[in-house]
């Protein structure tokens, strides 16, 4: 029994929160402590399983590990298929830890706890399942399943005057993004002709029967912009700062930290290996769009007066680095992008958790009203300072490693963009982060805040956990890079110089000449 669970621990990791949510349906709503305890236990088990899986993972072993596969709808080629390789193993670990931390941070919710915990668990379980699944259908299905609770949580438990508008905006944007991606994914399934939703199956099939250039040119923009809207790619970002500003802290932690990475993961997992020709032609445009994230949103962040909007904007800005890494289309860049995805997951969760604590205690996040919080709140203040330093890329925190790797990767292709992005990262990021730190942490303490209570031992746990993760991967990046690099190499193998020339040579031929001719052309080279 026990070995069975360990062998199928990936299924356990994401089903555990979902089953816990189902269990909570049957707990009476006035058993508040029990509800909270069950929710924490559920996410703890999945986090523990994720740590176990991460430690047992063999880097570079090839193929997928911890695989399970059950046919679901055979006539359509849909199967329940989960597994991890170097690209998603870190993401699953990050999601499970952030989900655990978010559940711990949910103590600020005082009304309708039962519904809140159920939705939070659905969100966590759904998104972990989406990261784990190797089937296109379940990949989309579980993400959508995780996304819907976000809207409800912002609508019901959100804060601020613009809550309704924020709910409306985030629902509209993310639904459009998700549906565009759905059309792209269905078109991918239909056009590939492989009659399977299995991602490894599609990639293997595409090796011998690549998608025609015209279908690639149709599908790739759908995925790029569909996923791009989900990741707040500039100029489709405006839902993010306001949405996060209005969301309750645990929701913002999970969405900004984890769910947002789905679109990026989708690009790396599906779009890059399957549509090399279209991806290659879109990447220059993407590199300029990501400058919009890094520079423009950086400037917007500098003007913010409210802490949550500032963090929200900075989280949008960080997405730019990941897009830059993807746009570079080489092993270093893509590995760096995956690394930032994991690091930023911890960081975004940490900053939103901390701002949630301040909002809970001080009742406001206006930076002009806050000040000198380091004195009453020793632990929280220090944690905020560390989070902000991590956000502007201080060595020692995981973000530094990822960002530097991305810059190395992107330097060759996009020198101008990289220079501007480095400037944005160091100078603009530094300015808004440090100004915010000065405004809220240093200086005189307003009288009404002088007696704020610092987090107790138990409440320190989520912050300590997330900080520890940032330190761990910041000081020992090898733990993660060893796992990412072999599989990132596989993802970008289609773009190796020799293969790419083959693609470019074959490009005019692809539209008219049959597959056999193309293969012959490749052999002649």
């Amino acid at each position: 029994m026990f070995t069975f669970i360990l062998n199928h621990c990936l299924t356990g990791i994401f089903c555990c929160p979902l089953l816990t949510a189902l269990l909570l349906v049957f707990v009476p709503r006035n058993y508040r402590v029990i509800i909270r305890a069950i929710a924490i236990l559920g996410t703890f088990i999945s986090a523990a399983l994720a740590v176990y899986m991460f430690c047992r993972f063999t880097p570079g072993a090839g193929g997928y590990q911890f695989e399970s596969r059950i046919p679901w709808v055979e006539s359509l080629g849909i199967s329940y298929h989960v597994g991890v390789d170097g690209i998603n193993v870190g993401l699953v670990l990050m999601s499970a830890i952030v989900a655990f931390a978010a559940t711990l941070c949910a103590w600020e919710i005082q009304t309708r706890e039962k519904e809140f915990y159920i939705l939070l668990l659905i969100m966590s379980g759904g998104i972990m399942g989406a990261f784990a699944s190797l089937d296109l259908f379940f990949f989309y299905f579980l993400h959508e399943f995780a996304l819907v609770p976000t809207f409800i949580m912002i609508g019901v438990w959100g804060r601020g005057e613009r809550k309704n508008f924020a709910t409306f905006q985030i629902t509209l944007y993310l639904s459009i993004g998700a549906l565009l991606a759905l059309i792209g994914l269905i078109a991918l399934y239909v056009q590939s002709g492989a009659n399977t939703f299995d991602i490894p199956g599609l990639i293997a099939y595409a090796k011998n029967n690549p998608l025609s250039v015209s279908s690639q040119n149709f599908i790739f923009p759908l995925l790029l912009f569909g996923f791009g809207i989900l990741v707040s790619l500039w100029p489709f970002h405006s839902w993010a700062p306001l949405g996060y500003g209005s969301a309750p802290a645990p929701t913002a932690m999970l969405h900004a930290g984890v769910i947002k990475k789905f679109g990026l993961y989708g690009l790396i997992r599906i779009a890059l290996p399957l549509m090399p020709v279209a991806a290659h032609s879109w990447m220059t445009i993407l590199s300029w769009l990501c400058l919009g994230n890094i520079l423009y949103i950086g400037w917007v962040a500098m003007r913010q007066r409210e802490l949550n909007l500032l963090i929200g904007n900075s989280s949008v800005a960080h997405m730019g680095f990941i897009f830059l890494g993807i746009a570079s289309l080489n092993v270093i860049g893509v590995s760096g992008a995956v690394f930032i995805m994991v690091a930023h997951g911890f960081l975004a969760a940490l900053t939103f958790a901390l701002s949630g604590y301040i909002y809970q205690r001080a009742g406001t996040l206006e930076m002009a009203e806050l000040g000198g919080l380091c004195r009453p709140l020793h632990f929280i203040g220090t944690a905020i300072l560390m989070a902000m330093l991590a956000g502007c890329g201080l060595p020692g925190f995981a973000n530094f490693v990822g960002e530097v790797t991305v810059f190395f990767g992107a330097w060759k292709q996009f020198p101008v963009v990289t220079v501007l992005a480095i400037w944005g990262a160091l100078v603009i990021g530094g300015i808004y982060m440090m100004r915010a730190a000065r405004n809220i942490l240093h200086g005189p303490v307003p009288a009404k805040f002088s007696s704020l209570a610092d987090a107790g031992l138990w409440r320190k746990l989520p912050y300590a956990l997330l900080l520890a993760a940032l330190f761990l991967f910041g000081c020992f990046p090898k733990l993660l890079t060893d796992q990412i690099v072999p599989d990132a190499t596989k993802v970008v193998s289609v773009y190796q110089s020799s293969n790419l020339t083959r693609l470019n040579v074959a490009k005019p031929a692809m539209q008219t000449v049959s597959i056999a001719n193309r293969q012959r052309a490749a052999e002649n080279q």
Partner: protein
Amino acid sequence: MNASLMTLEIWVLILGIVLMLADFFFSVSPERKKYIAYLGIASLAVMLLTILGSDAVTGVGFNGSFVEDELAIFFKRFFLIAAILVLFLASEFSDKISATLPEYYSLVIFALTGMLFAASANDFAMLFVSIELITVTFYILVSYQRRKVGSLEAGVKYLIIGALSSAFMVFGIALIWGTTGQINFNQLAAVAPQFVDNKIFLTGVLFLLAGLGFKISAVPFQIWVPDVYQGAPTPTTAFLAVGSKAAGFVLLLRVLFTAIPAVTERWADFLIVISALTILYGNLCALPQQNLKRMLGYSSISHAGYLLLGVAAISVSGRSAVMYYLAGYLFTIIASFTVIALVMRHLNNEDISSLAGLNQRSPLLATTMTLAMVSLAGLPPLAGFFGKFLLLKSVIAAGASNPGYYYLAFIALAGIVISFYYYFGVIRAIYWSKDAKDLSPITLSGTAKFSIAICIAGMIWLGTFPSVVVSLADEAAKAIK
């Protein structure tokens, strides 16, 4: 002649007569009269399990006018389940109906008979008779609350537009018969290719489609829907939304793909436009609605549009998607009308705002309504998501030959996004509207809980384990030749 093919229809007809006569033998108290409905439910359930069980007979009879194939069996199962759930709903709703109840139940059964014949219709005579049986029964069912002006108004509107569309249909059938000399679908299919350029023949087909468009409430024949849905007694509305629409679709599938495939292929663009207009009209008009039944009326137009996606795709996978989607729609729409009937039976209007505080009055009903709205909006893990997924898949697959299908997919996408607004408006009214006037708990009878449980189980089962129904729908779709 193989009369055994019609066993089910004969038994259902006998059941309808028995229920009507049962009125004489039961005492007058309305409580007791509920047992007549339960008798009907039990008999239908037995028929579902025996006659339409796993080894249902197939074949063609009555000079090729009656066909019992996988398609017919799929839809007959569908209609029986719909009638069972509607009878549950009607027995809950009985205190609102002042006229004699058993007649209401037997009229539901007669309408069901019409639907069963529609599922098997293989020539124009059978098609017309079954449609008339359904429509004439519904004239009475719609105006059954005879002391309520809205119900009578709905009845009159349904009668006038229904009669008009029947006239169109008969005229269309006459033109088709006049040009081709054929009335049987299979025989017509053999000669139809010679007539694809015959203007009179094509006019006939167009008129016939107008009559069917009225049944499925496709634009531009949708105008009756909001008033009738709003005014009719809630069980009637539910049966109209599910049974009558599905009957229209099974006939549409037979006519388009068995009788006149040659014309259908030429009219792909026409079907694309109709589908797109129906989706946009339904969704845009549903946005400002205050009355829940009226909103569901417009939403039912938009769902007719989604279903037409699968028809317009002109492929086996498209037809199979239509059937899967209808199966999910059955449980979803009956769940929502059951909630409406139970919550609003003592109110004169069915405003969305009267759902306020429902989660305190009855958590079960609140959950049911939420699940129904989430499924109608097409979100996982419920039936609506997988249905829309299949429909979109069939449309995108057709896109390789005709780029119009890609535009259609994007219009469907726009419709889905618009629909989130009004479906979430209902959920919002249930959970976080602050002006609840009435917070008294709602007590549910055991049978109401049972039928709600069936609907919830149906929605979740179809959404998470679709393979059984998908393979049944595939078989049914392949039966259309």
